[in-house]
């Protein structure tokens, strides 16, 4: 078997790693081994966080809808329940965007929700 020489391949491999590690802190963007570890780790986080992003965003929308509801004297759970009973199928992303971009529509949604809710209207905002 012929002897394999690695010069060019090795350079290429290092360059690929360092390219992916561009902008990292200190030695992680300059040295091959530290950069390789950092890149592997970064990819793990990226893979995981593409999944957790969906949950994080939903939690954010719920927080925002809660704020919008409390401004109008109701709560998140009552509001969502009322919408369901009313047959309104807007998802949480759209509801939170409406609360920011078109507060008047959200006012109406709260009203629709209150009308269809079986719970007695909240006495206070708490």
């Amino acid at each position: 078997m012929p002897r394999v020489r690695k010069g060019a391949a090795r350079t290429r491999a290092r360059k690929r790693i360092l390219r992916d590690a561009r902008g990292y802190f200190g030695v992680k963007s300059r040295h091959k081994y530290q950069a390789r570890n950092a890149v592997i780790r970064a990819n793990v986080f990226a893979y995981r966080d593409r999944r957790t992003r969906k949950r994080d965003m939903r939690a954010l929308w719920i927080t925002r809808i809660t704020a919008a509801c409390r401004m109008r004297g109701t709560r998140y759970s009552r509001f969502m329940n009322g919408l369901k009973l009313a047959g309104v199928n807007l998802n949480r992303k759209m509801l939170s965007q409406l609360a920011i971009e078109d507060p008047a529509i959200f006012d109406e949604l709260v009203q629709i929700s209150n009308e269809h809710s079986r719970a007695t209207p909240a006495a206070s905002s708490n």
Partner: protein
Amino acid sequence: MRRQTTFAKAGEVEKKWHVVDATDVPLGRLASDIAVVLMGKHRPEYTPHVDTGDFVIVTNASKVALTGRKAEQRLKMHYTGYPGGLKVRTFGEVREKHPERLIEDAVRRMLPKNRLGRVMLKKLKVYAGEDHPHQAQQPTPMQVG
């Protein structure tokens, strides 16, 4: 991909001022309502990595309510680092001597423990008495409790 969820931008958030009268309001209830406003969770454009909260002025901090026997029983302690350097005070004593401290402590512990949390805390202004030097900001009264 078009981003469909709005994120508030630092510096573009319009901050309001609120004023709260702490007279006879239980400490914890007061603090949790204030913390929500400081964090900005009372607004539909709340963004976790940006400070979207408002300013809160608390007046009459010396008249905040401590329910049950907490004024005599519950202790504020801290250790100075010297031998035998444990300082102990009841909540009632702290309320008399440093009325601002009780509310500031309670609110601080309800805020996020990070850099942003420390920024948020700076928007809290607590005063022992009736008056505050923020008339120019035209604060609106806030409902608590």
